[in-house]
């Protein structure tokens, strides 16, 4: 679950999930939804994504940077993420999707990068919550 946040120049999102691995999945889904309209994406291909970080925050930034690389560099459209391994310094996930097709996948926004600006990862008691701002 996620929602879009305001920033004077750019855009952000808040994602929520019952566990940290699911939070990272929700954050990846939020990023995909900022970049393109996530309807009509077929699970035609599976890819393995991984990232490392020296803190929970840097792990999240590096994980989302990995997803962004696939969106922009490999022109991949994602329709699902499933975290396979997760610890405080490393994440590995299986992702489903297909090569982006301009005729079917409408681009909403080109995201330049994932920032540390006002980055938050918190546990509210029931849920894990993160807030991430993107440079667009």
């Amino acid at each position: 679950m996620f929602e879009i946040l305001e920033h004077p120049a750019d855009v952000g999102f808040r994602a929520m999930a019952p566990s940290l691995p699911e939070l990272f999945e929700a954050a990846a889904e939020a990023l995909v939804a900022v970049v393109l309209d996530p309807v009509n994406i077929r699970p035609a291909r599976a890819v393995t994504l991984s990232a490392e970080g020296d803190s929970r925050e840097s792990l999240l930034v590096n994980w989302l940077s990995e997803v962004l690389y696939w969106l922009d560099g490999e022109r991949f459209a994602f329709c699902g993420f499933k975290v396979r391994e997760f610890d405080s310094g490393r994440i590995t996930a299986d992702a489903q999707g297909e090569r982006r097709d301009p005729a079917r996948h409408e681009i909403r926004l080109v995201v330049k990068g994932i920032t540390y600006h006002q980055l938050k990862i918190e546990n509210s008691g029931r849920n894990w919550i993160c807030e991430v701002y993107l440079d667009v």
Partner: protein
Amino acid sequence: MSEEFELQPIDEFRFRIPRNEARGMRTDVVVYASRRLIEQIRRDQSLEQAVNVAALPGIVGPSLAMPDIHQGYGFPIGGVAALDWNHGVVSPGGVGFDINCGVRLVRTAVSVDEARPKIRDLVNQVFRDIPCGAGGEGPITLDHPELDRVLAGGAARMVEQGFGEPRDTEFAEERGCLAEADPGKVSVRAKTRGRCQLGTIGSGNHFLEIQYVEKIHHPAAARAMNLEKDQIVVLIHCGSRGLGHQVCTDYLAQMGEAMKKYGIAVPDRQLACVPIHSPEGQSYLAAMRAAANFAWANRQAILHFLRLSFRKIFGSGTQIDLIYDVCHNIAKRESNPLAGGARDVLVHRKGATRGFPAHHPDLPAAYREVGQPVLVPGSMGTASWILAGSEGALRNTFGSVCHGAGRLLSRTAAKKGRNAQEIRKQLESAGIIVRSETRDGILEEIPEAYKDVDEVIEVVHRAGLAYKVARLRPLGVIKG
């Protein structure tokens, strides 16, 4: 909000936040603004970000804020910081994700009266020939060896390959190529992101605008730039696309680790920095220069396709010449009197334009007597400006001036209660044709989302940083 800071007026257009060691500041912050602009500036976190920049190790002179300053990440957008070349740091956040985002302005032999009846055809032609590239590939795809030659050679490599005229490179900051770029320091991922994107504008606030010269303010400078009233010019605002974004991402990740090694602590992780002469600092600078060269190559490719578009509409002999090309996201080694004579500094300009005065040795001969053209785009559908650098910038701001109008509303707020069709109609009724590749591109860049560019220019002009040469009005806009 940045309400908490005590802003001491220095004069009519300058305010100081004094150095406060408790906040880690090593120097003052100096903000260039009118009283009205300063109230707008206080509404976001940009002053706090300028204060954080004042904490960077090796900063020389004040942390500077231009009148178009607004909240960014780490550095404010509209921020300038000079770091001692021998003892200072380099910060990828002080350059930003879009390395060498910049502005290129070209003049044409077409008049506004000739253009108006054909403006819709022209906008459609340019929209076809110069894609925004949001969803896919651009008109040029390079293999990795050729991409490396572009990263090393910048705009000149594009001209060698037939994408331009030899004299184009004379009219660009650094002649469109930074020396000591090392393509080997640019990751394969960055190259993969960029190799299909040459000749594309991108999205966000990037655009290509067909404009006319509404008013000449300084006839001698306008003559030096071969500008006349009612002449059609084209302003291109874009950068290094995915390649530059990935270079920033790669090095930000490395620097977070490296800072610990050098014992550097910063108030905001987005300000991650390392000593200029550390291996990490040198690698970043070599990669950043390569990405900057990619951006100049990109704007050169766009100029080439623009020439083709104009010639399809106005005839094969239509003359199109480059006036100048400036970058506004960059870190460059410069020698500056503010740094104490011969002392070299690494000037970080994050949303700020270099503006060197007349007789500066780095200027092309055509502008030696009038100063460097400074190109300042306004918001979509309003005015843009051509200025020329004044002595005051070299004395007070490390040769830097503003880069735009400066954002006022968030993208979400800009979209609220508006629809793209209405905005398009409003602009059309004002004689401005807009084409956009993405759904939200028009809504997010509505004129109300930005400060008044004329007020920003007034501050720069009256503070003696640069002087007004000409005001431009749009006829056609192509947006990402």
